[in-house]
């Protein structure tokens, strides 16, 4: 599947998410300089690049949290350019931000319940019980307040909370950063399970090895531009690319 996302293709089923030529600024600094990408239904895609290359900004621009100055976005074939974030995500997107965005003054149960909503097609595939089955630790801590959780538990909670919105697409920013190895494994396991249920994902993480195993395709960002895109095989075969854009 080649991604030359300047327009979604109306003839076939449109891509789940498409962004074209995003230019985004913070104040006077030009952060995104024409980013385009596309995610198909059920597809798992990674966004790679060193710190400060625009990964988070790309995600925020797509969601409308940091509106791009120019460029267009589509979700399931509907143009969402300029939409407010809540409308964009209502098209079936769940967002797990870098700082996790747990509500510290709400209990684990409340964090989950307040987010719950049926999916775009009206189905409720992720009721509280099923979600908790995937996160046994959260079930144990259901009455604790958000600020009483460890980092790993918080990350599980944000992912669980994302599932409660019955998404078509899950966006994970820094999925495992700062977590203990045990928790990392746990998170990767859960992400795998989610992929297997047919939910598409965009994942940002430092753990290139894990991403190569998990994702169908990859985008590499450098200084606000997509410098490479392709499948895991191609990336494995190209250690140069690896060194140039991802290595230390």
């Amino acid at each position, binding site marked *: 599947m080649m991604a030359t996302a300047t327009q979604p293709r109306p003839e076939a089923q449109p891509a789940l998410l498409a962004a074209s030529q995003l230019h985004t600024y*913070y*104040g*006077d*600094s030009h952060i995104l300089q024409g980013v385009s990408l596309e995610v198909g239904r059920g597809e798992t895609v990674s966004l790679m690049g060193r710190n400060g290359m625009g990964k988070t900004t790309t995600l925020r621009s797509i969601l409308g949290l*940091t509106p791009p100055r120019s460029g267009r976005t589509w979700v399931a074939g509907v143009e969402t350019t300029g939409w407010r974030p809540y409308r964009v995500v209502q098209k079936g997107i769940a967002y797990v931000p870098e700082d996790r965005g747990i509500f510290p003054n709400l209990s684990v149960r409340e964090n989950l319940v307040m987010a719950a909503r049926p999916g775009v097609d009206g189905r409720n595939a992720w009721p509280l019980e099923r979600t908790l089955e995937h996160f046994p630790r959260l079930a144990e801590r259901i009455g604790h307040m958000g600020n009483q959780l460890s980092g790993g538990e918080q990350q599980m909670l944000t992912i669980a909370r994302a599932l409660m919105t019955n998404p078509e697409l899950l966006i994970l920013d820094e999925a495992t950063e700062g977590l203990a190895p045990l928790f990392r494994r746990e998170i990767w396991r859960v992400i795998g399970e989610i992929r297997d249920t047919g939910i598409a994902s965009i994942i940002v993480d430092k753990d290139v090895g894990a991403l190569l195993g998990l994702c169908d395709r990859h985008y590499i960002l450098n200084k606000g531009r997509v410098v490479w895109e392709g499948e895991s095989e191609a990336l494995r075969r190209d250690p140069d690319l690896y060194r140039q854009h991802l290595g230390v």
Partner: protein
Amino acid sequence: MHRMTRPLQLLLLLGAVALALFPLGGSEFYVGLLTKIMILAIFALSLDLLIGYTGLISFGHAAFFGVGGYTLAIVFQNAETIPFWSALLWVLGASALAALAIGWISIRTSGIYFIMLTLAFAQMLYYFFFESPRFGGDDGIFLFATPEVSLGSFTLNLQSGHNLYYFVLGWMLVVYLLLRMVLKAPFGHVLVAIKANEQRVRALGYATGRYKLVSFVIAGALAGLAGFLEAIHTGYITPAYLSWHESGLVMVIVILGGMGTLYGPILGTFAIVLLQDYLPNLTEHWQLLMGAIIIAVVLLLPGGIASLLQRLCDRLFAGRASEASGENNASAPSSPPVSSTVLFAPATPGRADNE
């Protein structure tokens, strides 16, 4: 500190000259009104040091204005003659002391808590004077003598409206220059940096609390000076000068005029007082107009009147300005009046929406 462009400097200088010449042709009433405006301008300048430069939003600044006036009235209540310079010392000392006490406690808090704590202390002082039988209660205190200013063998009679006008004009310029000096000194740079990002200044090893306190005391003393001049001007002082309405009004003046500039609050005082004088001629419901004007400024002129003036100057001298600015196109975002300091870069971008 905000750098002024040459045309703006020229314009302000012209304004100062006009002020100096005004009594030669202006009516007695307007000489009096301008005297009052300039006194309030000193008051507004002192508050600007806090909200415009230090980032301390005081909602009780009228307390020091009142303390200034009351100090004069209490100390010299029965005096036949009031020597100006010793009265001035009394006033500055008392209002600085009051500011030190209130500031020392208030500065421990921040944000809305600071706003409310300063208000609380001002209200306490207000009720203290309002209900005290000793200091005249709500009737206030009348002054029957006017201070005598003697410099060597020369004596200035402040009972004459013209003399008082020039005297107050002189003080306004002194306060303006004093604040300019303070802000240009390293001390001033630290204040501005505290406003931009206190954490970072503290991390650099500055005892920010002490800087804020000194700023608070300077502002309190200058507000006391303004209250002192007002008591000389009107010959009496009442608790109403300490009420939260007055604190609110001076805040309105500073923001409307353009905080973080020193000429802004002066312009703001002129605008508000002249509007208060003029609008009642138009309609009985003039407060409606006043409210609408303030809202319009908030929504359309975030930098206050000062920014409007700056923009006008830029447009008048547009040719030169655009050459100078080079790559910046016309739609460049309007930057805030305080553009940070030499010491510190502006706060990280993108997080401005989360307080």
